[in-house]
């Protein structure tokens, strides 16, 4: 009887110890695996982000090279040809003095001179050299001037708040392209409604707000658009802002205008992506 009892105690005792041992073993494995899985996912996510940044950087570099080429062509070729045209028109203007054509040639000369200014403005707007030489604020001022000149009205205004600082040449090129895209969107959708570009230089970040008083849009409707109807503009702006360690947000209500808000951190407060942008 005693022997049987001791056997029962032994089985129950060892069984209990084994159950606890197995449970501890399984839990340890699960915990270790979970940590490893999280670390693995983080690593994958980091690699994916780095890959995305590289792709975007390459895209931007290609875009900048193309725009630079177009800017150079506009300046060196089209600009020069237009200068020659203006020269001949000046001669013609003098030659037709006192004839019925004189006034018409004068108008033609005025339009051509305006065209020369537009081409020069466009060339500066597309060129990456301009931003290197004059900085972001001046280039954005030029953009506003270009819009107003094309519209023959004071449709767009620029406001600069705080003390301006540089974000670095490469960052400023990307920011300029983003603002150009946002301004083009505003011009496309807001028609002749007033547009305000505000640059708020805060100690830790630059906030750029492109506000129009156009019809606005429904964010949910845009996000639900089919592949055929959907554009890349909003997505591209967000991606570029992320590349710079910043954010790009929209505040829009149908019939109440749109605010595109770009927040780009100041370079000394953000170092993560700066190395990616030394192209």
């Amino acid at each position, binding site marked *: 009887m005693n022997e049987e009892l001791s056997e029962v105690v032994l*089985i129950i005792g060892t069984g209990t110890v*084994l159950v606890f041992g*197995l449970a501890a073993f*399984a839990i340890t*494995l*699960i915990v270790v695996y979970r940590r490893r*899985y999280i670390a693995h996912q983080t690593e994958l996510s980091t690699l994916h982000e780095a890959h995305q940044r590289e792709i975007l950087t390459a895209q931007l570099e290609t875009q900048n090279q193309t725009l630079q080429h177009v800017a150079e062509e506009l300046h060196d070729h089209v600009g020069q040809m237009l200068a020659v045209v203006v020269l001949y028109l000046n001669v013609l203007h003098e030659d037709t003095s006192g004839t019925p054509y004189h006034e018409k040639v004068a108008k033609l000369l005025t339009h051509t001179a305006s065209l020369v200014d537009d081409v020069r403005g466009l060339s500066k707007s597309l060129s990456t050299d301009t931003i290197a030489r004059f900085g972001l604020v001046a280039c954005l001022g030029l953009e506003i001037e270009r819009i107003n000149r094309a519209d023959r009205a004071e449709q767009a205004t620029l406001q600069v708040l705080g003390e301006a600082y540089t974000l670095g040449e490469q960052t400023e090129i990307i920011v300029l392209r983003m603002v150009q895209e946002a301004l083009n969107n505003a011009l496309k959708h807001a028609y002749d409604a007033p547009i305000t570009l505000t640059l708020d230089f805060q100690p830790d970040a630059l906030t750029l707000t492109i506000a129009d008083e156009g019809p606005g849009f429904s964010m949910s409707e845009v996000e639900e658009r089919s592949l055929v109807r959907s554009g890349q503009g909003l997505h591209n702006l967000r991606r570029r802002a992320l590349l710079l360690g910043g954010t790009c947000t929209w505040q829009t209500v149908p019939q109440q205008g749109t605010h595109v808000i770009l927040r780009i951190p100041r370079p000394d407060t953000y170092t993560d992506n700066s190395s990616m942008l030394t192209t």
Partner: protein
Amino acid sequence: MWETILFFSLATVCLLIYLWQWTSLTISMKWIGIAHAINTLTLAVGTIMTSNDVENNLYIFHFSLLPLHTAYALAFYFAIDHLLTRKLILSSIGLFITISLTFSATVQPLHEFNSYSRVVSNLLLAGMSLRYLYKLFVEVKMARIEQSSFFWVSVGLLFTSVGSFFAYGLMSYLIDLSLYHAKQIYALIDAMNFLLIGVLVVAVYAETLFALKRHNR
């Protein structure tokens, strides 16, 4: 006697769960179910023979170990998606059968307990379990490892195989010195069997429940 009744009750419940879920089980889990059926059947036949005063029933454990080990090994063969490992597993089945039959014909004949063959089998199963767990940890494919049925099978088999490896080894040593102590060690192996049944139930639960959840998602 109570532990025998309890064991067969649990083993039958486990077997019925496997049969009930049979169509939704993966091939690996089906082989685990087959292995469990072989194990339960062998122990049932052995118990019936003992209760009918058969002098020696040890030979059935010699023969049943071969299909039992083969079933477990095939479960790992289908679970581990790695060509070299699969080849090694298939080779190990042939090797084990040869070694086991050699032991049965020489050092531990049919009228003796086949502890040597069981030690080898446990060692191989522990190795396969470790290989599976290693692959699981290296690949890190699943978000929740506890939802994988074969994780539980591997953990259970690794734990019970290592435990049984030492228990059979110790029993082989003690059986000539003290039968009383050898029987006590056998109680440990009984406890391992209980534990394995518990783990097999958890595994089939994980297989059906989480597969259903994944399907519904």
